[in-house]
């Protein structure tokens, strides 16, 4: 069983590495978008400071613009919590999210998310996107509710390099 799993892991890794190799940008692009399961590498001070005080700073490439607009318009009731910001910071973060959203055409990850998104879909949760559901369809329901995981919003529980935007299969370790 273990060998089988390891085999699958190796295959997945090889697959990912070759995907990466083929998806490297041909020109010298300033922004690293490694394709595969790597989020576009972005920096934005307020996004990182504010969003990441409570959860991972989810990549803007995971949701379309309409989703980010809805989400940032309701921060005082953010999934049951008050996450309100001063208007200037809110506008600053929203501009950044819109510019790099899944449907902004700026990242491979965004394109993958959009491939499975309906034209009028604007989900509020990354976990509601068809892309996410498909990527995680092998994870049993009970795993999400483990104390060590807490919530499907806790990417870093299993994706050890999530903070760096790396979501490769071989970095996954599901905690007990």
């Amino acid at each position, binding site marked *: 069983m273990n060998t089988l799993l390891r085999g699958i892991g190796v295959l997945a890794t090889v697959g990912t590495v070759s995907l990466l190799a083929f998806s490297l940008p041909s020109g010298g692009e300033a922004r690293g978008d490694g394709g595969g399961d790597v989020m576009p590498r972005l920096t934005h001070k307020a996004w990182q400071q504010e969003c990441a005080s*409570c*959860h*991972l700073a989810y990549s803007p490439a995971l949701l379309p613009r309409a989703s980010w607009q809805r989400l940032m318009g309701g921060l*005082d009731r953010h999934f049951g919590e*008050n996450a309100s*910001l001063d208007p*200037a910071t809110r506008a600053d973060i929203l501009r950044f999210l819109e510019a790099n959203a899944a449907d902004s055409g700026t990242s491979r990850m965004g394109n993958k998310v959009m491939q499975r998104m309906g034209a009028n879909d604007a989900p509020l949760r990354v976990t509601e996107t068809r892309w996410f559901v498909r990527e995680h369809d092998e994870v049993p329901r009970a795993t999400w509710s483990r104390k060590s*995981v807490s919530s499907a919003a*806790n990417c870093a529980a299993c994706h050890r390099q999530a903070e760096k935007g790396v979501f490769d299969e071989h970095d996954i370790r599901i905690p007990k």
Partner: protein
Amino acid sequence: MIERFLFSSLALLAMTSAGALAAETPASLMARYAQEAGVPASALSAARGAALYRTDHPGRDGQPVRCASCHTDNPKQPGRTRVGKRIEPLAPTANAERFTDAAQVEKWFRRNCTDVLQRECSAQEKGDFIAWLNQIK
């Protein structure tokens, strides 16, 4: 239009200069909240602050909620957000950055008081709260 632009520029300028002067201490924030509440700083109560921290309140979904739900019963320990992210300890003795930035302190009181108490905290409550955390050794 021009007036509005001028006003927002002025507001921005005020915010920026306030940000530059953000180096507060727990004691200076206690003094500020006491003044806002119209009481001497000596009237702030660590015991009331502790009670505020430990008391259960009916949350938005009807489930009891209190500060310790996320920050744990011991504010010298790190807490966890609802989605499992680490929260640095609240007590200044365990986390020197606590209560050193007025804008941060106001932001979190505004958010967390509305989540836990379903209303904003009064200046007196904020002062009591810091008074309690600040005397923890």
